[in-house]
């Protein structure tokens, strides 16, 4: 067929609704980038003096910014990792129960309760941690130190108040549980019925069907859910600041009264009294927290993309 040599290619007609909507969507997208850039620029600009200042002014022991921030980084990651370790298996269990085991009515009720839990402000969790969880766990901690003290994690001396990094981890776990559960439930519910039936028709039990079809299919979503939970645990301020009496140390012991604190809690506790270079140091720790979160998210992206061909999205 001869192709007509046309100078202008046919253009689709521009409808006002389309123009308006694509403009609005573009503006929203740009706004996000601008906000992110603004925060980053603020953090870097305000943090710079902390890196260049005289080490003696930066921290009390005079060894400079990095020796100040490393224990905080450790505390942040340690508390968040412990929380995730507690919350993740529980969340997956609850989500699977809601999506594949519970009768419909129970599932709906339970779903509401989990969503409700997500709406509780973190200061309430902090109060609960101090007044209920810590005293309740203290005898358990005593028992653990007495009987399992030879494991470094449970080394003594035991805290007299129960306000330990393990208590914090439990509080954080309760806080991130709803978001991980709610997201994984949605992901599990999206498993194509065809794949579930394929597994069942091969003679899979319900649990084997879940392992064969539901969990692999939900893996990318599960990782995203975990990262959102981890992000919240890393950045959580109030609950940690309230429960822990801070000490800047690196220690894996879970049950002593000497506990590493987190970046966010440290900022919250020290910012009101900070002045001069002290403010810059705290903002610099904030920058470090920002980078940790960024790193964690990129890692998750990387893990998801590595198995892209097998994701079931194609």
């Amino acid at each position, binding site marked *: 067929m001869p192709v007509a040599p046309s100078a202008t290619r046919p253009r689709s007609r521009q409808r006002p609704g389309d123009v308006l909507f694509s403009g609005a969507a573009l503006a929203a997208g740009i706004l996000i980038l601008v906000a992110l850039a603004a925060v980053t620029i603020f953090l870097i600009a305000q943090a710079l003096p902390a890196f260049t200042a005289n080490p003696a002014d930066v921290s009390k022991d005079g060894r400079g910014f990095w020796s100040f921030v490393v224990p905080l980084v450790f505390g942040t990651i340690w508390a968040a990792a412990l929380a995730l370790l507690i919350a993740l298996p529980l969340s997956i269990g609850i989500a699977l129960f809601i999506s594949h085991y519970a009768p419909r009515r129970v599932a709906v009720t339970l779903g509401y309760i989990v969503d409700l839990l997500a709406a509780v402000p973190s200061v309430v969790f902090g109060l609960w941690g101090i007044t209920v969880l810590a005293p309740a766990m203290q005898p358990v901690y005593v028992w653990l130190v007495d009987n399992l003290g030879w494991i470094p994690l449970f080394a003594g001396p035991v805290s007299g108040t129960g306000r330990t990094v393990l208590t914090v981890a439990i509080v954080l776990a309760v806080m991130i549980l709803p978001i991980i559960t709610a997201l994984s439930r949605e992901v599990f519910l999206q498993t194509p019925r*065809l794949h579930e039936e394929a597994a*069942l*028709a091969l003679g899979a039990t319900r649990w084997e069907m879940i392992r064969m*079809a539901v969990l692999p299919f939900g893996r990318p979503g599960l990782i995203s859910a975990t990262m959102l939970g981890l992000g919240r645990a890393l950045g959580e301020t109030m609950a940690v600041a309230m429960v822990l009496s801070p000490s800047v140390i690196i220690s894996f012991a879970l049950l002593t009264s000497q506990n590493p604190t987190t970046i966010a809690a440290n900022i919250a506790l020290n910012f009101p009294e900070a002045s001069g270079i002290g403010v810059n140091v705290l903002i610099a720790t904030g920058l470090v927290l920002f980078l940790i979160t960024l790193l964690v998210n990129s890692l998750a992206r990387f893990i998801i993309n590595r198995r892209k061909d097998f994701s079931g999205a*194609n």
Partner: protein
Amino acid sequence: MSKRIEVRDLNVFYGNFKAVADVSLTIEPKTVTAFIGPSGCGKSTFLRTLNRMHEVIPGAYVEGEVLIDGENLYAANTDPVEVRRQVGMVFQRPNPFPTMSIRDNVLAGVKLNNNRISKSDADDLVKKSLQGANLWKEVKDRLDKPGSSLSGGQQQRLCIARAIAVSPDVLLMDEPCSALDPISTLAIEDLIDELKSDFTIVIVTHNMQQASRVSDKTAFFNIEGTGMPGRLIEYGDTRTIFERPSVQATEDYISGRFG
């Protein structure tokens, strides 16, 4: 490997709704039996009762007996999981596990029964099953690629390979070609012809030519109206059903006068 299926007075219910009524028929080993009939006549539902897959829908249950070589699938102590390991199934749309490689897809059912299969045994089984499904030549160089990277027809043959890898007694096929193009359909039909030397095959199809091409026996199901249960109208040799049906409804259906 292949076994006789006897169905006696089977009724299938979804809650209060009776979907299929009073079906009795006998399917001989190493034959291909086609179920035909208009949409909603209960032929797929009935097919799924042969490996208890209808139980996936909450509230579904049956009355009556399905005997495979004399053993009732619905006996009180029969585990549906065991039934499905003996009676394999291929679905309307190809459904290989997208999260698994081609190789793992073939082995999926085998690993449920026996997780400790040695690598060389597994390799042999993968080869044998894929050869059995006429797919080996096309995929032998990319067994570690995802199952979803194949074409629709290849995916369906992969599903057949997955089903026959566990050496079932019976192979159920629920409109296996309805999502495929004519060439892939032909490949599956040729495959069915080869498979019947090893398995008892039951196939649901909307395609009358397909039923007459692949099957030895044909069962015609019909429904009197919405809300009424589907019934088995006529069952016999495929030739007889297509050339000299004894019921008027069968003749109307196969000659295209309704449905």
